[in-house]
């Protein structure tokens, strides 16, 4: 059997349903990382951890990209303040639920209250930031959201809000030092005292940890995997929600707004109201994604909400295909695995497989040894921490340029995802009585 016929069969199989397609993408990326793991010198624990990391990040990016797809892919609302709305969600949650004693003092309310509050705050700020701009053309919304995102980040970072006492209650963002957040809620499942750094495992922990320890897999990796799986579940819920939103008369109006707002309003649709609703929902989901992200580490700081964060989400959406929910999830996973983690994997791979000698001080020193046909110093120079993340940006730029030139619709943007709750091509009339 030729390779092309195999790939044809795989394509035919994956084309049947979106679930299969997503499964195939996940499988492909896992296999890739499994193969790369021993080459990076990972033992089983390290391998498991590297898979956990791409699962965790893919799920988070999936949620964020889906939210942006709702705003930009469906309704054409150009929101480049994604990072800002993420920050609003996280910090509001932190202020509501962090312990009063922590850096960046909180109110110590239960975590669910904090999460709901974070979502509401992200929604509210989204609406407030967008209300004036939604009346105008798309470019203004872009400018306003970019500015709002930066204002939010700089406000959070400001020492003024590090700790504020209002009416005897002290709250704060921790300013430049960042903010301690409630402990990862998944720890409740495994530990007697989830808040304590070193706690004894509870009944579940006692049952689960030794089993994995038998394979050399550490407790933290097990806990991390549990959290990643919960995120996959939440991603599934968000996906389900947004597929329903998209495949409905509501989604149809959103698409019409994206294509030509005047036509939509000339057909009797109050487009402003649609835009406000969809912007609010999108911002809430961005807040949710960010809250889930930062809860895993129990800490956040303003540096996580630089504009680059917004562009990462955009790139993932462009890869996947704006306008497609399934494409958004695929784009998130492909972005995380290949573009975000990929360069780091290659770096570890090179350092593991080759003897990295002295790292040249400058780029020109590195180039100089090329003249002597010795690529070693250049390689060593490239795989330093600083340079590999710079190269990651170069890689992202190249991929973007290529995609915009060759495949502006992304991986799945070309598909006809008809916005309707029923199959429009099917007629009740032709198939007898309905």
């Amino acid at each position, binding site marked *: 059997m030729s390779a092309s016929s195999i790939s044809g069969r795989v394509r035919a199989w994956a084309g049947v349903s979106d679930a299969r397609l997503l499964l195939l993408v996940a499988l492909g990326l896992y296999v890739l990382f499994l193969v790369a793991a021993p080459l990076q010198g990972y033992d089983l624990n390290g391998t498991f951890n590297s898979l956990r990391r791409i699962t965790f990040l893919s799920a988070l990016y999936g949620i964020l990209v889906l939210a942006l797809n709702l705003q930009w892919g469906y309704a054409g609302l150009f929101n480049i303040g994604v990072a800002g709305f993420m920050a609003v969600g996280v910090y509001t949650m932190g202020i509501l639920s962090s312990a009063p004693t922590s850096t960046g003092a909180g109110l110590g309310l239960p975590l669910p209250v904090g999460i709901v509050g974070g979502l509401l705050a992200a929604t509210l700020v989204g609406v407030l930031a967008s209300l004036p701009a939604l009346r105008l053309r798309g470019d203004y919304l872009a400018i306003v959201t970019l500015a709002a995102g930066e204002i939010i980040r700089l406000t959070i970072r400001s020492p003024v809000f590090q700790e504020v006492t209002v009416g005897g209650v002290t709250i704060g963002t921790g300013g430049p030092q960042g903010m301690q957040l409630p402990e990862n809620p998944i720890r409740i499942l495994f530990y007697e005292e989830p808040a304590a750094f070193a706690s004894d495992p509870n009944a579940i922990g006692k049952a689960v940890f030794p089993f994995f320890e038998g394979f050399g897999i550490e407790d933290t990796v097990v806990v991390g995997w549990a959290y990643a799986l919960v995120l996959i579940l939440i991603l599934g819920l968000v996906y389900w*929600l947004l597929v329903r939103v998209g495949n409905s008369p*509501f989604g149809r109006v959103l698409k*019409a707004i994206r*294509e030509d707002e005047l036509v939509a*309003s000339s057909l009797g649709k109050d487009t402003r109201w649609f835009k406000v*609703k*969809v912007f609010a929902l999108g911002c809430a989901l961005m807040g949710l994604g960010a809250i889930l992200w930062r809860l895993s580490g129990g800490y956040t700081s303003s540096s996580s909400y630089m504009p680059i964060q917004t562009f990462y989400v955009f790139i993932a959406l462009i890869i996947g295909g704006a306008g497609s929910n399934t494409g958004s999830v695929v784009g998130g996973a492909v972005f995380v695995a290949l573009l975000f983690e990929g360069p780091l994997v290659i770096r570890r791979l090179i350092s593991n497989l080759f003897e990295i000698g002295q790292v040249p001080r400058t780029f020109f020193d590195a180039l100089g040894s090329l003249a002597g046909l010795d690529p070693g110093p250049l390689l060593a120079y490239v795989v330093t921490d600083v340079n590999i993340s710079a190269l990651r940006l170069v890689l992202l730029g190249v991929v973007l340029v290529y995609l915009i030139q060759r495949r502006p619709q992304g991986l799945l943007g070309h598909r006809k995802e008809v916005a309707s709750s029923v199959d*429009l*091509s099917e007629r*009740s009339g032709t198939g007898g009585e309905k």
Partner: protein
Amino acid sequence: MAADAPSPTGAATEAPPAGDAASGTPSDDALLAVEDLRKSFGGIHAVDGASFGVEAGSLTALIGPNGAGKSTTFNLITGVLDPDAGSIVFDGTDITRYRPYQVANRGLVRTFQIARELDEMTVLENLMLGPRGQSGESLWRSVLPGTRRQVQAEEIELRERAWETLEFFEIDHLAEEYAGNLSGGQRKLLEMARVLMTDPEMVLLDEPLAGVNPTLSEKLLERIHELRTEGYTFLLVEHDMDVVMGHCDPIVVMHQGQVLTTGSPEEVRNDERVLEAYLGGEVGT
């Protein structure tokens, strides 16, 4: 040029000068009544005190040389632009300064001079967008399990109507095509079909035949006549005089932002001032 320009302040007093009985004052039973409508852009008075009425069930034409203010009038009626002065009454309701979606929801729907298709939506999606008051246009109704079933039932009914409308316009073979892939003429048909899906009382057609080949034009006109007998009212802007004279009655002639005359094709054809307006005042004085 106008015989005597009305003073800017002198409001609705018998607007058009030297008009015949039919022009100017719309009769009381008109479905759409435009009264002394005014709109300027900078120093240009695009619409300068236009008044006319459209009878229910008629196929009224709005004609005039380029720059007469026809398109601006359309935009004022449909809420795309706000008038500086004057009033627009549709079906007994004052719809002056309504926003476009409010006008459409009253049952007064328009098409565009250059067909504005929603390119990256299929022909069927374009049609399904039309119907007013779809419960599935509420965010939560589309999502929640119980209400979604109702939305689906509604959509199955609308789907049937969409297919029937496509067949009526003979573009059902294009149903699943992206609207952006349609030819110019097909786009015009699609736009008409989409407007009809809103179940309007009255349709404003902005040059529905521009760029449409003669065969398709015939077909489109046939459809318009058929719909008129079903009770729809049409007001159309058109430059093709053969079409206007052969199919429309009455005809409203605009010139320099005002209504020059209103009448049957014969009356308009024999009106010296109409000829004068079209030929720039060099003939027939």
